[in-house]
C-alpha cells in the first residue's frame, strides 16, 4: 500500500509526519524547520505559503490570510464578533465564508488546501515519492461541517483523506507509543484557535475515549488579542493614534503581542516595541508575566468548565485521572500549567514537544491504517449529540454525545396526510433543547410513495463513521428498496463546488508553482551570494585581478536577478556565478590543503 502521511493542520502552524522504522517523525523543510506557518499570501507573482507568506502579514495584510481554521465549516454570522480583527475581507456564498484576495475569492477549504499542498510537496521532496494519502487531525470538538470542510480541503489539495482524527487522541497515540502507558489519561489541548479536553482509558493497546469536550473558538489567538487590545488602547491614549485604520500596524501589534506572550513563558518581564505609522515614533513598554496573567486569566479559566463536563460525562472525578498530557503551544504558559495542575491535583506531562505531538500521532494512525502498526487501536467518540428537528422546533436526539464511533441510529418515518410524497428532514448537532439553538448540519427530503397516511414506512439510518462524519441512508421497509438521499449541507460546499475547486487548483497550480520556484530560487541565490562573498574575502589574494572583477560582476548580476520575478533568470545567474567563482573555489581548497599539511611529517600524510 502507498505510504500514508499524518498531517496536523493547525490554526497557527501545520506539520507533516511519517512513520520511520516504527517511530513517528516530523518532516522538516528546506530551512530545517518542521513547522509551516498556516499563512497564505497573495503576491503579484501568485500565492505563497508558510514562512515566506508570514513576512507579508505586515507588508500586505489585506492579502495575507492567517488563522483560516477558525472559518472552516462556518457561515459569516458565526464569526461576526471578530470580523474587525481580520484585515482581509470576508463575504459569504451558499452558507460558506469566502475570503477575498485581490480579484478572486476563496473558500476556507481552498486556503487550507494551499497549506496542505505545501506539506504534501515537503513530504514528497523529503521522501522522494509521490504522496496521495493522508490522515488529517482536527479539534475533537469540531462539528460535522468543520470535519467535512477539512476533508474537502484535502481533496482540493489532491490528497485522499483516509481518516480524520481528533487532535487530543492523536497526541495520546504518540504518548502511548512512547510510554506504553496504561490507565486513565486526560489530554488538555490548547492550540492557536481551539481548545479540547479528552479523557481516555488506555489498556492493552486500546485507546478508548471516554468523553471529550471543548471550545472550537478558544485558543492562543484569543490570548494574543487581550494583550494586543491593551497595547492598542495605550497607543491611543499616549500617542493619540487609532491603529485600527492601519492594517499593517494592527498586524505588527498582534505579532508583537504573540511574541511577548511567548517570551513571558520563560521570562518574568519583557520589553515591547511597536513602530508607529507616519513617523510618529515608537510605542514601548515593559510587560510582566503578572500583567500577562491578569489579562488572560479569564480566558484560561474558560477551559476549566469543559474539563469538568468531560469528567462528569466519563463518570470520573479529577482523582481518577492517572496522567495528564499537555498539547498545543499555548500550554507552555506557566499559568495554564498551574491551573491544570490545580484542577487535576497532578503535575501534567510535557515530555513530547507540544507543537509536534499531534502530527506524530497522526503518523501513528496513518501507520495503523496502512497495516504497519497492528497492536494499537483508537476508539474515539462523537463530541456532539446528533438529532433531528421534530414538530414544535424541538431537537430529538438520535446519537448522544460521547458515543463511541462508528455509531448508528435508525428512525422510522411515515406520513400524516394521505398521498403525501415527501418528508422534510432537518439534521442538527448540539446539546440544546430547541432546534434553533443547535447547529444546523443539513436538510434533505425523503421521497415517499403516495399512500394513505401512516402506511409508508421509511427507515432512515444515521451513521457517524470513524471520521466523525455523518452518512445518511434511507430504505422503504415495505419494498426493501434503498433510496439515495441528496443531503444539502447548511454550512458546507456542495460536491459540484468541491469538484470545481479541485479543477481550479490544477489550473492555478502552474501559477503557484512559479511563485514557489521564485521563492526557492531567491533563497538559494541569497545563500550563494553570502558564501561567495565570504570566499572572496578569504581568497582574494589567491586569484588574478581579472577573476576578481569577473566574480564581482557575476555577483551584482545575480543580485539584480534576485530582485526580479523570473526564477529561471535567477538560476541562470547562479550558474554564471558558480562558473566565475570556480577558480576561486579551487584556489581556496588548494590553499587549505597546503596549510593543513604544514608542520606534518610526510609519514603522517601518506
Amino acid at each position: 500500500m502507498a505510504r500514508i502521511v499524518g498531517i496536523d493542520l493547525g490554526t497557527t502552524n501545520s506539520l507533516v509526519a511519517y512513520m520511520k522504522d516504527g517511530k513517528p517523525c516530523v518532516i522538516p523543510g528546506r530551512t530545517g524547520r518542521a513547522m509551516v506557518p498556516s499563512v497564505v499570501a497573495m503576491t503579484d507573482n501568485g500565492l505563497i505559503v508558510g514562512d515566506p507568506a508570514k513576512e507579508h502579514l505586515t507588508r500586505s495584510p489585506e492579502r495575507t490570510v492567517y488563522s483560516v481554521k477558525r472559518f472552516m465549516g462556518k457561515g459569516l454570522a458565526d464569526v461576526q464578533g471578530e470580523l474587525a480583527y481580520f484585515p482581509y475581507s470576508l463575504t459569504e456564498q451558499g452558507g460558506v465564508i469566502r475570503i477575498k484576495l485581490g480579484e478572486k475569492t476563496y473558500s476556507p477549504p481552498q486556503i487550507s488546501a494551499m497549506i496542505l499542498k505545501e506539506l504534501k510537496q515537503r513530504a514528497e521532496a523529503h521522501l522522494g515519492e509521490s504522496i496521495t494519502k493522508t490522515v488529517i487531525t482536527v479539534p475533537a470538538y469540531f462539528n460535522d461541517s468543520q470535519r467535512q470542510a477539512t476533508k474537502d480541503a484535502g481533496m482540493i489539495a489532491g490528497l485522499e483523506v483516509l481518516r480524520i482524527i481528533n487532535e487530543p487522541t492523536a497526541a495520546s497515540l504518540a504518548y502511548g507509543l512512547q510510554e506504553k502507558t496504561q490507565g486513565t489519561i486526560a489530554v488538555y489541548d490548547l492550540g492557536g484557535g481551539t481548545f479540547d479536553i479528552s479523557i481516555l482509558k488506555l489498556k492493552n493497546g486500546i485507546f478508548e475515549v471516554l468523553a471529550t469536550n471543548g471550545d472550537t473558538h478558544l485558543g492562543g489567538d484569543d490570548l494574543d488579542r487581550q494583550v494586543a487590545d491593551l497595547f492598542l488602547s495605550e497607543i491611543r491614549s499616549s500617542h493619540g493614534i487609532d491603529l485600527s485604520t492601519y492594517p499593517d500596524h494592527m498586524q505588527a501589534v498582534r505579532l508583537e503581542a504573540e511574541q511577548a506572550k511567548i517570551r513571558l513563558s520563560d521570562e518574568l518581564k519583557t520589553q515591547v516595541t511597536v513602530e508607529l505609522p507616519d513617523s510618529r515614533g515608537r510605542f514601548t513598554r515593559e510587560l510582566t508575566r503578572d500583567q500577562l496573567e491578569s489579562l488572560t486569566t479569564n480566558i484560561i479559566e474558560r477551559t476549566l468548565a469543559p474539563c469538568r463536563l468531560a469528567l462528569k460525562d466519563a463518570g470520573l472525578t479529577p482523582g481518577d485521572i492517572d496522567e495528564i498530557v499537555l498539547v498545543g503551544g499555548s500550554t507552555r504558559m506557566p499559568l495554564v500549567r498551574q491551573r491544570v495542575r490545580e484542577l487535576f491535583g497532578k503535575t501534567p506531562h510535557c515530555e513530547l514537544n507540544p507543537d509536534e505531538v499531534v502530527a506524530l500521532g497522526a503518523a501513528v494512525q496513518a501507520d495503523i491504517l496502512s497495516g504497519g502498526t497492528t497492536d494499537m487501536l483508537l476508539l474515539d467518540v462523537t463530541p456532539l449529540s446528533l438529532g433531528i428537528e421534530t414538530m414544535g422546533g424541538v431537537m430529538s436526539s438520535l446519537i448522544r454525545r460521547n458515543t463511541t464511533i462508528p455509531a448508528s441510529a435508525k428512525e422510522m418515518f411515515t406520513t400524516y396526510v394521505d398521498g403525501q410524497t415527501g418528508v422534510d428532514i432537518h439534521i442538527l448537532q448540539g446539546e440544546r433543547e430547541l432546534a434553533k439553538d443547535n447547529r444546523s448540519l443539513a436538510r434533505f427530503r425523503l421521497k415517499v410513495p403516495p399512500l394513505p397516511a401512516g402506511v409508508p414506512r421509511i427507515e432512515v439510518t444515521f451513521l457517524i463513521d470513524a471520521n466523525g462524519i455523518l452518512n445518511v441512508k434511507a430504505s422503504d421497509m415495505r419494498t426493501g428498496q434503498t433510496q439515495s438521499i441528496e443531503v444539502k449541507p447548511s454550512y458546507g460546499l456542495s460536491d459540484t463546488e468541491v469538484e470545481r475547486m479541485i479543477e481550479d487548483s490544477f489550473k492555478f497550480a502552474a501559477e503557484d508553482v512559479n511563485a514557489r520556484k521564485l521563492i526557492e530560487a531567491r533563497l538559494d541565490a541569497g545563500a550563494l551570494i553570502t558564501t561567495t562573498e565570504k570566499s572572496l574575502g578569504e581568497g582574494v589574494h589567491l586569484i588574478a585581478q581579472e577573476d576578481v572583477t569577473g566574480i564581482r560582476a557575476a555577483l551584482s548580476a545575480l543580485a539584480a536577478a534576485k530582485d526580479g520575478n523570473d526564477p529561471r533568470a535567477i538560476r541562470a545567474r547562479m550558474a554564471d556565478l558558480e562558473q566565475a567563482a570556480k577558480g576561486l573555489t579551487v584556489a581556496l581548497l588548494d590553499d587549505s590543503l597546503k596549510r593543513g599539511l604544514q608542520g606534518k611529517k610526510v609519514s603522517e600524510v601518506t
Partner: protein
Amino acid sequence: MDHHHTHSTTPRELQMARSMCWHCQSEIAGEYFCDRCVKVQPVSKETDYFTCFGFPRRLTIDTGQLEAKFYELSRAFHPDFYQNKSETEQAISLGNAATLNTAYRTLRDPIQRAEYLLDLEAGAVKEIRTSPPADLFEEILELQDTLDEYRSADRASDTGRQLRAKLQAEQTTLEQRKRDMETRLQQLFSEWDALQERGEATSQARTERDRLLKQMREIISNRTYVKNIVNDLVATIG
C-alpha cells in the same frame, strides 16, 4: 412530519437469518468470519446484543469480561483494519463496528441492559411516565408546587432560602428512593438469572417469569420518572 422511535433489533424487524458467506457461499458456523475464505461476515440483524458478545441472556454481567470481549471484537471489526480490503468488506466492518458499539453501550449499563432484555422478552418499556407513580403521587405534587414557588421567589430572601433548603432535603429523599429502587432491581435481576439458570418449562416457571418482568418494568419506569425529577431539581437549584 410524524415519526417514532424504534430499536434496531426488536423482534418485529427480524429478517432471514444469515447462513451463507456473502463471498464464497459456503455455510457459516456462527462466528463472524467465514471458515473457508476468512471474509468478515455482517452481524445479523437477528443477533441480539447478548449473543453478539457470546453471553447468555442474563442481567448480571461481569463488566470486566464484557470489556475484554468488546476490545477483542473491536480489533476484529474496526474500520481501521479494513483500509486495504474491498468496498464490501469495508461496509461490513463499518456496520459491524457500529452495532458492536451500540451493543456495548447497552449492556455496560445495568438499567439499559435490563430495559433491553425486557424489550427482547416482552416488548419495549414505555419510554416516559407521564404521571407520578402511585406511592409518590402526593409527594411529587407537593414538590412541583415548591419548585414553582421557588422559581418565582426572590432567591436571596428568607423565603427563597427556606424553599431552597426544602428542595435540597427533597432531593436527598428522592435520591435515596432512587437508590432503593436500584437495590430492589438488583434483587429482581438475581431472581431472573436464577430462574433462567434452572431452565424449567413449567407453568409455574412461566408465571414467575411474567411476574418478574412486570415488576422490573414497573420499577424501571418509576426510577426513570424519579431520575428526571431529580435532574429537574438539580437544574433549578443548581
